[in-house]
């Protein structure tokens, strides 16, 4: 173990590094958010409608469960490395790898959310003469929002937190600094790590706030963020 003064000194230097290179770090952070946003967008475009439709039809629970288990078992490093060999180095490879990573929680939670809507409510809506599209839009989706959005939030935080690893495959972002101790030294690495932590915490808090805002008022009685239900950790 190093002496406390030495470790403290490294930390102080890390903050100096942040103070000395705000523009550079902001550019890198933006790069990371761009990659994360693109990956999340791709995952949302594919996994969200799939999960919602399967949940509405009450079919494919095996797919939803499988997606969650495999999604968690597949290490991000393996995904990024494997896509690197398939798609080459750069943005596309990382976007696809991170999108695959994000699809797991989005698909599983979207399916669970829509599939798990109270059957009595669905029956009542049908009895009132709603069509499938109306049922989905007016009953199932509003009731599914909390769980569905939790999946999106988990996926988004996972992507932002994993994006630094993409640096080894040319993904850019703050990870570029973290994996390059030779150029930036330990204080740069730690400074970038602190920025990465702040960035994912900010994304988490922003999405938690958004989640409260999009949750229908009637479903807000329980606190959304500190929720200790198991779905939270999917």
């Amino acid at each position, binding site marked *: *173990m*190093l002496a406390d003064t*030495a*470790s*403290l000194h*490294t*930390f102080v230097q890390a903050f100096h590094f942040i103070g000395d290179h705000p523009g550079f770090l902001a550019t890198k952070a933006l790069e990371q958010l761009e990659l994360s946003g693109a990956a999340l967008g791709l995952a949302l475009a594919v996994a969200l409608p799939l999960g919602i439709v399967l949940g509405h039809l009450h079919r494919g629970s095996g797919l939803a469960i499988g997606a969650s*288990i*495999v999604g*968690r*078992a*597949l*290490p*991000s*490093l*393996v995904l990024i*490395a*494997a896509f*690197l*060999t398939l798609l080459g180095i750069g943005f596309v490879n990382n976007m696809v790898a991170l999108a695959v990573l994000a699809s797991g929680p989005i698909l599983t939670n979207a399916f669970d959310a829509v599939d798990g809507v109270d059957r009595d409510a669905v029956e009542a809506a049908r009895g009132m003469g709603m069509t499938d599209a109306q049922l989905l839009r007016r009953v199932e989706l509003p009731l599914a929002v909390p769980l569905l959005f939790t999946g999106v939030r988990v996926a988004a*935080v996972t992507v*932002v*937190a*994993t994006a*630094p*690893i993409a640096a*080894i*495959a040319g993904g850019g972002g703050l*990870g570029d600094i*973290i*994996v390059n101790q030779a150029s930036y030294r*330990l204080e740069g*690495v*730690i400074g*970038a*790590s*602190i920025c*990465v*932590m702040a960035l*994912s*915490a900010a*994304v*988490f808090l922003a999405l938690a706030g958004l989640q409260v805002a999009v949750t229908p008022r009637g479903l807000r009685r329980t*606190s959304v*963020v*500190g*929720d*200790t*239900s*198991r779905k*939270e*950790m999917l």
Partner: protein
Amino acid sequence: MRGHWGDTLGPALVQHVELTAIAVGIGFALAFPLSLLAHRFRRTEHPIGVVSALLYTIPSLALFQILVPFTGITWTTVEIALVSYTLVILFPNIVAGLRAAPDEVLEAARGMGLTRLQVLTRVELPLAVPAIVGGLRIAVVSTISIGTIAAFLLPKGLGYPIFLALKEPTPFKTEIYSAGVLSVALALVCDAALVLLRRALVPWARRAA
């Protein structure tokens, strides 16, 4: 693959199992008493829940690096990071499990004259087993997955062959696939083993997810 097994993949797999076992073991040893505490004093649950949700957002790569000035480039650094992730996963699951006992059951238990401790050990804990094992499943599988990132810091575990392969300029990288498949297989095997454990512990709840 055969040529790589003895000198690379075999030891990497063993290290990875060690890494995971220590992280989940210590994580559980910490999470269990904390959960009992949160269960007993309900007011502590929400703050702990928020803090752990935030802690879980810390990227592993960043967490490893931030610990380096304090604990150096060591096994301890890796384990501290992995233990905090398992803790954050296990705690809410155990608490949710302890909450799962229906009020009628608790009423009945108290009516039968059980003390608070007896209610905990004979009613709440047995009913919490599925949730606890559920938490362990997530913790084990996630730790195996996150453990590959440890290779950025230490030349150990299944991440290391992948990490090395990425640094070479060759286009087709066998190590990436073999180590990748091994880590996924390890995760799925551990997951299945825990499902079997749950069935053995709670034979009355065969159908629970």
